[in-house]
């Protein structure tokens, strides 16, 4: 006999999902719609004069080689942040999973950085790597490496990736650890009895069983790298030197809120929205096929 819970009233389900729908409409659909409208306009900052320009904002953007370059910068940045934060988190999770004594302390310490706001994380790393007063740059100097991220594009990129990844490791760690603990011990023990080495066990049993977690984190981390790293960039490099750390979301801010060019800024938001939508579709269609639930 089939068990089923159902509601008598027709309107009740709608009433129950209404809060979520309202939140989505007010905080996502409405602003996103405004961005789409503004992307076809050339307004002055005060909104006194607005000209409808159709696709012109987009044409202007894509004819700008610095905007095209920011695609590449964003791709490199997001790939590095995702790779670094997920691999370090996985390593730490595997190690923490094996710890028997005082595991609570390890876990707490590893989760801590997640509570730090991106801007604070940025300032902290900047403080350590400040070319003139930073402790780490002082040590690097002692071993013969000149650290000057205000002029060296690779070092600047390295620093913002490090700061952004560091913040995200905690989040990833938490999910990986939960994923690891959900893997039945019996499977691993059986493999061990059959003579599989620890690496072999990880590669053939643990990692495949972790794949739903890994996939979920992949999506979350790419979105994080795209949108939430703004504070880190703003405090450490402001997009420089040159435009070597100018990721797309920072450019939206720089053009819209510093430059007061709302039309171009809105067009960039629309492009960004499209890219993230596309990425998510790609991930679900192609990457998810390789995920074992």
């Amino acid at each position: 006999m089939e068990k089923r819970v159902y509601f008598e009233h027709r309107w009740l389900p709608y009433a129950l999902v209404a809060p979520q729908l309202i939140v989505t409409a007010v905080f996502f659909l409405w602003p996103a719609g405004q961005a789409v409208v503004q992307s076809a306009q050339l307004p002055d900052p005060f909104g006194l004069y607005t000209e409808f320009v159709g696709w012109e904002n987009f044409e202007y953007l894509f004819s700008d080689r610095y905007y095209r370059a920011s695609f590449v910068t964003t791709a490199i940045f997001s790939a590095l942040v995702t790779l670094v934060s997920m691999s370090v988190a996985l390593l730490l999770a595997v190690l923490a999973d094996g710890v028997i004594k005082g595991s609570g302390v390890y876990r707490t310490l590893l989760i801590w950085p997640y509570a730090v706001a991106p801007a604070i994380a940025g300032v902290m790393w900047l403080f350590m790597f400040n070319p003139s007063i930073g402790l780490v740059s002082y040590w690097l100097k002692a071993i013969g490496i000149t650290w000057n991220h205000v002029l060296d594009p690779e070092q600047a990129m390295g620093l913002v990736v490090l700061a952004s990844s560091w913040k995200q490791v905690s989040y990833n760690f938490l999910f990986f650890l939960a994923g690891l603990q959900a893997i039945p011990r019996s499977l691993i023990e059986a493999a061990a009895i059959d003579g599989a080495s620890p690496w072999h066990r990880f590669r053939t049993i643990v990692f495949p069983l972790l794949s739903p977690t890994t996939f979920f984190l992949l999506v979350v981390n790419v979105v994080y790298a795209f949108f939430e790293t703004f504070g880190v960039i703003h405090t450490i490099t402001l997009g420089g030197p040159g435009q070597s750390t100018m990721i797309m979301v920072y450019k939206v801010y720089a053009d819209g809120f510093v430059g007061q060019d709302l039309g171009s800024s809105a067009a960039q938001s629309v492009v960004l929205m499209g890219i993230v939508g596309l990425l998510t579709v790609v991930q679900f269609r192609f990457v998810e096929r390789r995920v074992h639930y």
Partner: protein
Amino acid sequence: MPIRRSLAATAVALTLGSAAFTTPAAAAEIQFWHAMSGRLNELLDEQVAKFNDSQDEHTVVATNKGNYSEALNAGIAAFRADEQPTLLQVFEVGTATMMNAKGAIKPVHELMKETGKDFDPSIYLAAVAGYYTTTGGQMLSLPYNSSTPVLYVNEDALAAADAADMPLTTWDEVGAVLAKLKDAGNDCPMTTAWQSWIHLENLSAYHDVPFASEDNGFAGATAELGLAGEAQTTHVATLGEWAQDGRFVYSGRRNEGGARFNSGECALFTESSAGYANTKASAEFDFSIRPLPYYEGVGGAPQNTIIGGASLWVMAGKDDDEYAAAADFLNFLSTADIQAQWHQDTGYLPITMAAYEQTQASGFYEENPGTDIAIVQMTGKAPTANSKGIRLGNFDQIRGVIDEELEAVWAGDKTAEEAMASADERGNELLRRFERTSR
């Protein structure tokens, strides 16, 4: 009572049919949004408190709205929501944006005329107020905090390098001193703050060559950048060469170099005159302030340098009482006592001649040698079309472009000619875009 008073005022105004007639103002509370933080915020609050205590008609409420960009954004967002403050502090690069927004602002000269308050534009220092004045001589916004770049010198470092008595008037002489410092093992002979402002905007004005066409944008929105000129490329090439051989060390786009100079790491430092208080408080070495160096025989050097800082804009859409309060407050800020105090406390330039003379008479300049250099440097010659100031749309973004191009030169990736040509091209695109919204 206030109702009857304003009714009476309206009646009088109607009978006389003159807007310039002085109406007895009713009590008004006005909002003043600014971007001053730390010590400057305290000093500003003191000024506001003094004004509020000095009369019982009006109340000014000052609120900090973050940094310059954030304060401007707050003002713009508030205007769009019809909640704008009466007074808004806007940094100098936002000047074109503000004056272009004709329906959003009330120019100071109009405010003074309509409220019938005493207003004599000739008391203001032309070199300071000129930045915020039309080519026709009408004041648009009241200069509040203004400064100009000067050269800070660590005398101990120079003595250690045996260069104490070497002149630092021209950039060629500076180059020789820097070489000496470097040979003596100094790792940071020179650094700078605000590179676009000091090494391009002020450099152009100081040599009396255009930074942009149309009188640096004062004459119209069709201006084009002129950064690839001889004076600019020569200077950028010189600094680029120094960056390569270690005589010039780049610290960042804002005033990151300040910490390096104040700690004694860097020997020479080009920075705003308003950095004086900070350096005086933290430097544990003997330092002096010198006029900004120039190139002998290039353009009309030394002409005068231009200001940076911010001014106070009156926003549109307020009633007569609020405007009367704003006019009184601006006049209060222009009094010699207030200005002299502000100048001496902060290192910002006084906006009136009277405040300068009062400071002189008080013996302040003898006690604090070097603090008058900025004023002398700015007012030594009458400003020309090239040295009155710069008024370009999207200027904040143009500065960003210039920062990027200069960084490429300091890193050795581009020559000065390439970088300046590219800055011109990219900057002009931004100018054309601004021009379209400025009809």
